[in-house]
C-alpha cells in the first residue's frame, strides 16, 4: 500500500526524522491560511498524488509570499497531473501540501529497501540526490553506499556513519544523520514497510539534514497488525474497478487492451495475458480469481470485467485442480446469464472433471467458443475480435 507524501512526513516526524513544517490544503483559501500560519516568505506547494515525477509534471511550485502559495494551490488543485508514473490518463489532484521552502546546499538520496537477495532491510545512500536513482545505480554505482540491517539487529552507529561519510556529510550533520538513518531503519522495521525513500535528503546551508520528500510503501500482508497505517489508505487513488474487485477478494488490475481475462492463479493469469498479446491482441486486465475460485467469485469476476467499457471479448482460462471444472462451468453459465453477456466469450477449461465441464458449457444455450489448449484459446480470441 502507498501513502501520500504528507502522510509519510507525519510518520517521519514520529521517528525523529526532520521534515519541513507544512500544512495540508484542499482549497486556495486553506493554502493561503496555511502559508500565513507557517510564516516566512518562501513556500513550496506540492500536489498530493501517489506518483513520482510530480515536479516535471507541474505538480510542485516554489513561490514567494503567502498570496502566491494560495494561487499556486489553486492551479494545482483539481488539475489532472500526468507523470511517467501515472500513465497517460493522469491523476486528479485533490490535496496540496504547503510547506516552508528549505535553503538547499546539497541533495542526497536515502532509502530503506526490502532486500530479497540478502533477506533483510538494506539502507542505501548516495550523494547523487534528487536524481533518478536507477540511472545513478547503472552509470555510477560507486556513488551508492549500502548497509544491511540484519533481523534482530539495529542499524549500528558505524554503519550509519559509513553511509554518511560516503555522502560527504561531516560536522554537526554527522551526528544528526546517524539518528536520522536509525529512525528511518526503525520506521521500516516497526511499520513493515517494503520501501522508505527520501529523495532528496537535503543538506541545508547551515549543514543540517532535512527530508524534503518522503515516499513509503507498506507490505500489504502486514496491514492487519498496523491499523494506524491501514487507515492512511486513500481509496480515491485506486481505479474504481480495482477497488470494487478488492471488495470481492479478487485480484484485478486494469490494463489498456480490449480482451478481458479471467484466470485462476496469478502466474497463469500473467501467462494468459502474454499468450493473448502473442496472438496479436491486447489484454484489458489481469484478473486472478484464486487457485480455488468459487462459482460466486467467477460471477463477481464477470461483473468487474464487463465494468470496463473497452472490453470487446473475454477469455476465461481455468486450470481446475482443487476446483472442479464442472463446478466452474456452472458458475460461468450462471454468471453469463445473470450479467447478460454481450461480448464474445472464449472458454478454456482443463483439469479435474473437464469433460463434464465442457458438456455443461455446450448445453448451456450460450454462445461460447470452447478451446482445448492455451494456444487455441488465444487464436480464437484473435479471430472473434477480427470478426466483431
Amino acid at each position, binding site marked *: 500500500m502507498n501513502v501520500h507524501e504528507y502522510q509519510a512526513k507525519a510518520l517521519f516526524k514520529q521517528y525523529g526524522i526532520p521534515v519541513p513544517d507544512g500544512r495540508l490544503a484542499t482549497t486556495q483559501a486553506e493554502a493561503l491560511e496555511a502559508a500565513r500560519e507557517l510564516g516566512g516568505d518562501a513556500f513550496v506547494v506540492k500536489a498530493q498524488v501517489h506518483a513520482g515525477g510530480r515536479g516535471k509534471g507541474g505538480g510542485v511550485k516554489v513561490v514567494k509570499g503567502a498570496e502566491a502559495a494560495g494561487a499556486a494551490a489553486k492551479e494545482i488543485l483539481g488539475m489532472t497531473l500526468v507523470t511517467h*508514473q501515472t500513465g497517460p490518463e493522469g491523476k486528479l489532484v485533490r490535496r496540496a501540501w504547503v510547506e516552508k521552502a528549505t535553503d538547499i546546499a546539497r541533495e542526497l538520496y536515502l532509502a530503506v529497501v*526490502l532486500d*530479497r*537477495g540478502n*533477506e*533483510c*532491510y538494506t539502507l542505501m545512500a548516495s550523494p547523487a540526490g534528487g536524481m533518478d*536513482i*536507477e540511472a545513478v545505480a547503472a552509470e555510477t554505482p560507486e556513488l551508492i553506499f549500502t548497509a544491511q540491517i*540484519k*533481523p*534482530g539487529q539495529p542499524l549500528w552507529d558505524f554503519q550509519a556513519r559509513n553511509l554518511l561519510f560516503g555522502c560527504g556529510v561531516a560536522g554537526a550533520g554527522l551526528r544528526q544523520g546517524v539518528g536520522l538513518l536509525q529512525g528511518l531503519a526503525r520506521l521500516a*522495521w516497526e511499520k*513493515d514497510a*517494503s520501501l522508505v525513500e527520501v529523495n532528496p535528503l537535503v543538506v541545508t546551508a547551515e549543514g543540517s539534514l532535512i527530508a524534503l520528500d518522503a515516499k513509503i510503501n507498506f*507490505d*500489504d*500482508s*502486514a496491514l*492487519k*497488525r498496523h491499523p494506524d497505517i491501514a487507515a492512511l489508505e486513500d481509496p480515491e487513488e485506486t481505479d474504481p474497478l480495482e477497488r470494487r474487485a478488492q471488495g470481492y477478494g479478487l*485480484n484485478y*488490475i486494469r*490494463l489498456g487492451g480490449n480482451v478481458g481475462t479471467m*484466470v*485462476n*492463479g*496469478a*502466474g*497463469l*493469469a*500473467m*501467462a494468459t*495475458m*502474454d*499468450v*493473448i*498479446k*502473442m496472438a496479436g491482441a491486447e*489484454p484489458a486486465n*489481469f484478473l*486472478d480469481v484464486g*487457485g480455488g475460485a468459487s462459482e460466486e467469485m467467477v460471477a463477481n469476476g464477470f461483473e468487474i470485467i464487463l465494468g470496463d467499457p473497452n472490453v470487446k471479448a473475454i477469455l476465461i482460462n481455468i*486450470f*481446475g*485442480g*482443487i476446483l472442479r471444472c464442472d463446478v466452474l462451468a456452472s458458475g460461468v453459465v450462471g454468471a453469463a446469464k445473470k450479467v447478460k453477456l454481450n461480448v464474445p466469450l472464449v472458454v478454456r477449461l*482443463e*483439469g*479435474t472433471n473437464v469433460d463434464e465441464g465442457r458438456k455443461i458449457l455446450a448445453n448451456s444455450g450460450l454462445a461460447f467458443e470452447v478451446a482445448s*489448449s*492455451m*494456444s*487455441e484459446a*488465444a487464436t480464437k480470441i484473435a479471430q472473434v475480435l477480427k470478426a466483431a
Partner: protein
Amino acid sequence: MSILVNKNSRIVVQGLTGKEGMFHAEKMIEYGSKVVGGVTPGKAGQEVLGVPIFNTVGDAVKETGADVSVIFVPAAFAADAICEASEAGVKLVVAITEHIPARDMMLVKNFIAPRGTLLIGPNCPGIITPGECKVGIMPGYIHTPGKVGLISRSGTLTYEVVAQLTAAGLGQSTCIGIGGDPIKGLDFIDLLKMFAKDPQTEAVAMIGEIGGDAEEKAAAYIKANYQKPVFGFVAGLTAPPGKRMGHAGAIISGGKGKASDKIEAMEAAGITVIRALGEFGSSVANALKA
C-alpha cells in the same frame, strides 16, 4: 530416486484441524502420502482422518518420527509454525500459507538457518514426487512418474506445465513450487543442485515470473555449472511496471525484474526458453527426443 520427498517421507500437518488443512490432508492421504499426524495447539488427543493430533510439533516428531511438515495455519501464526517445526528437528518444512509478512519471513530465515531446516514456500503449492508422495495442494492426477524435474514460482501455471509434460509423454521426477513471495525458502539454485545429483532427473523445467532476480542468478549458475538440459518459461512479458501481479514478489520495480531481461539471461546461459506457454510440453518432448 527423486529429491526431498519419497514414499518413505513421514508427514505431519500443522493446522490439520482447520478447513484448508483437513481438505488437503485428505487429498494427500488419498494420493498415498504417509500423513502420520497433525498439530493443533490445545487439541492433543483427538484423531482426525485417522491420524493423531498433537499439541506441539515436538510431540508429533517424538511419537511418529515425522521428518516433513506441511503448514496450513493462518498467515498471522504461520511464521511461528515454521520456527516450531524447525526447532523440533523436522528436516523439510513446506509452507502453503499465503500473505505472511516479509518481515516475519526475515526472522524465520534467520531462525531456521543454523538449524539446517529446508523450507519450501511460503505461498506455494508444495512439492510432489509423482506416484510416491504429495505434500501440498496440487492436483495429484496430472502428474506421472518420470525424468523431468520441475521448479516453479507459480501454482496453477505449474499445473498447466505438468499437464502438458504428462500429455507429451514426459513424466516428472519431483515438482516443487517455490512460491511467489520476495523472501522464501529454497530457490531455483538450491533445487537445481539437488536435481543435478538425482539420477532419475534427466532434464529440468524452470518456471519463472517477473520480479526479483532469482531467474538471472539461476541462469548464471547454470551457465557455469550445469550438465543437464534446462527448459524455461517466464510469465509476465506483458506485465506493466509498478503493478503487483497477484504474488507479493511479482512486480517490476525500478526497471528491474522484467520478463524480457530474465529470458535473455536464461537463453544466454543455454536454457531453452519456450515463449508460447501452450507449446511447453511438446517443445520439451521434441528436444529430449532429438
